[in-house]
């Protein structure tokens, strides 16, 4: 009997070799069992129920409401700190960092990119809710809701002051990163924000609630773990480096925070310009009073603004041109383009041998022309999107130049609407605010 089966197997091997790697179906007839043996069903354990997605959305809404209340009404640094701890525990360590407004930006871009992707409602809400909250209350999401922000918030030990020129230059990175993330997400190439999220590997170290699959620290994402540790180590001395200079979602929130209906103030009372708050802010987000600008300079300023507008337009055009030039390399972020490039090299005999990427295509038994056509379609979408990305980079640079040259009059020390993450550290450093607390607690006879 065994010899017989061996012969059958050898024949089958020969048949398989002759047929190439044809999709395997029923080389061996399905046995009809007479002993009453019943074929077991294939087990299919269900994913986490949708219900939990809505739990996450509810937690997000509640945390946003709490953060806004604590930052604007209660003005409680301690409350915000505890909220950050809870958000870090829930969104970070419990949910493994993957119910995330920052990453949701890419799902939204992919859905709007027109590839037929339908964004899950819960993910869309993760993107929209913090934006809406920011329009009303400023960046309270960053204060105590975002787990990435919370993690960095809690490790600030001895913040150093970053020189203004460096702060301004590094701040541009976030906008450029946002543009790149949207470009690669909308074209269906990659979700770079998630791929290069430095903190997610730290969140997943926690075995909390995942007894079956504790992540091995030396597993596949060692590099990202090292990067995360480096960010945290830097975060001891530089307040929130990721939030300030890289976070792409933070870049959107900065823009919206500038025009928010309400915002965090250092004290609701009158500023005495003691500059104590400026030293209190680890994120360099408090702006000094400017005094009055001399009136005579108005004409010069206008001329300068006109020149800068022209420069900004030139930068925009140059960026678009550069984006156009980079269509080729950028489109190689897409799997289909990489595969087509490799297959083309092999088909034209420019390289010898195959790799997994090309083997995967040959296994489909499709004609290469079909793959080339698909790749061309992807490249066409990059040809549209890449110059837009370049123009965006130009626009960001130009807008920064203009912003730096426009003079604003400030009479008091104020948190910068864009840069302030509503952490509430400055409250306790303001002598006027302390005076106000004393009055309030004396009046109610409570602690």
């Amino acid at each position, binding site marked *: 009997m065994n010899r017989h089966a061996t012969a059958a197997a050898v024949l089958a091997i020969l048949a398989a070799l002759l047929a190439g790697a044809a999709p395997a179906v029923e080389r061996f007839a*399905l046995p009809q069992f007479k002993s009453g043996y019943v074929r077991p069903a294939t087990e299919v*354990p269900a994913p*986490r129920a949708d219900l939990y997605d809505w739990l996450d959305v509810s937690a997000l809404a509640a945390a946003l409401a709490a953060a806004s209340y604590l930052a604007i009404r209660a003005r409680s640094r301690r409350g915000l700190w505890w909220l950050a701890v809870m958000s870090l525990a829930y969104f970070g360590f419990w949910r493994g960092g993957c119910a995330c407004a920052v990453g949701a930006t890419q799902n939204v871009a992919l859905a709007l990119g027109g590839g037929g992707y339908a964004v*899950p409602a819960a993910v869309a809400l993760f993107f929209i809710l913090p934006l809406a909250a920011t329009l009303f209350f400023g960046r309270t999401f960053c204060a105590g809701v975002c787990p990435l922000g919370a993690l960095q918030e809690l490790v600030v030990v001895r913040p150093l002051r970053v020189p203004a020129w460096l702060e301004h230059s590094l701040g541009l990175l976030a906008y450029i990163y946002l543009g790149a993330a949207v470009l690669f997400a909308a074209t269906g190439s990659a979700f770079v924000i998630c791929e290069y999220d430095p903190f997610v590997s730290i969140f997943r170290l926690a075995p909390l609630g995942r007894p079956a*699959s504790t992540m091995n620290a030396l597993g596949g*994402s060692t590099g990202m773990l090292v990067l995360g540790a480096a960010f945290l180590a830097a975060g001891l001395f530089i307040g929130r480096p990721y939030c300030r200079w890289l976070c792409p979602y933070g870049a959107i929130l900065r823009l*919206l925070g500038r025009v*928010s209906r309400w915002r965090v103030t250092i004290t609701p009372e009158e500023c005495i310009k003691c500059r104590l708050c400026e030293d209190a802010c680890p994120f360099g987000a408090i702006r000094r009073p400017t005094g009055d600008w001399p009136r005579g300079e108005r004409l010069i300023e206008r001329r300068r603004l006109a020149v800068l507008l022209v420069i900004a337009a030139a930068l925009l055009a140059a960026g678009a041109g550069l984006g156009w030039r980079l269509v080729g390399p950028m489109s190689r972020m897409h*799997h289909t383009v990489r595969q087509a490039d490799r297959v083309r090299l092999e088909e034209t005999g420019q390289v010898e041998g195959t790799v997994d990427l090309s083997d995967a295509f040959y296994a489909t038994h499709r004609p290469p022309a079909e793959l080339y056509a698909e790749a061309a379609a992807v490249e066409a979408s990059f040809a549209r999107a890449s110059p837009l990305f370049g123009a965006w980079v130009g626009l960001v640079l130009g807008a920064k130049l203009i912003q730096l040259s426009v003079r604003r009059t400030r009479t008091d020390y104020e948190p910068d609407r864009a840069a302030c993450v509503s952490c509430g550290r400055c409250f306790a450093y303001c002598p006027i605010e302390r005076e106000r607390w004393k009055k309030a607690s004396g009046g109610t006879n409570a602690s």
Partner: protein
Amino acid sequence: MSEPKKQLSRREMLRRGALGAGLAGVAGTAAVLAARTARSGTVWQLDPEKCIQCGNCAVNCVLDPSAVRVVHAFALCGYCDLCFGYFPPGFEPDDEFETPGAESQLCPTGAILRRWTEGPHFEYTIDEALCIGCGKCVKGCGAFGNGSLFLQVRHNRCLNCNECSIAAACPAGAYRRVPADHPYLLKGEDQKA
């Protein structure tokens, strides 16, 4: 009191206008998104028809061992006594073997259990706790057998990362987001379930 108010007015008006524009923008984005929204969530799954068993699933998952395991569509299985998902190629069986030692098995972790059913037929079940998702048995079964063994993302293990790190490393582009209410891409009859 009216003096500072006047000073602020132009800047404040601009800000309010921008706030209105921002609100309209966010509401507009929400409205556009609403048309492209799925009520149910998505999960990652790999298409066994595209899979080439390169072994990336075993090493690229953020979990260790990977959330990808072998599943067995019993409805497709030939119940072969000489199974090339179980024995290494070129294996010469003894006449009276029952269960061979681990050194004679293809699976590096001995995760496939072999049990006699009747006549020349043997049942192969996966011990999922031992499986590491390397796909060696899938390759053997696909090349020489009915292809009833294949890899799947197991949703009791998968963390459902927004960007699956295996998907990013898959040379075959076999990974895609599927609706959470149909979370498997099974071969054979199980597809109907």
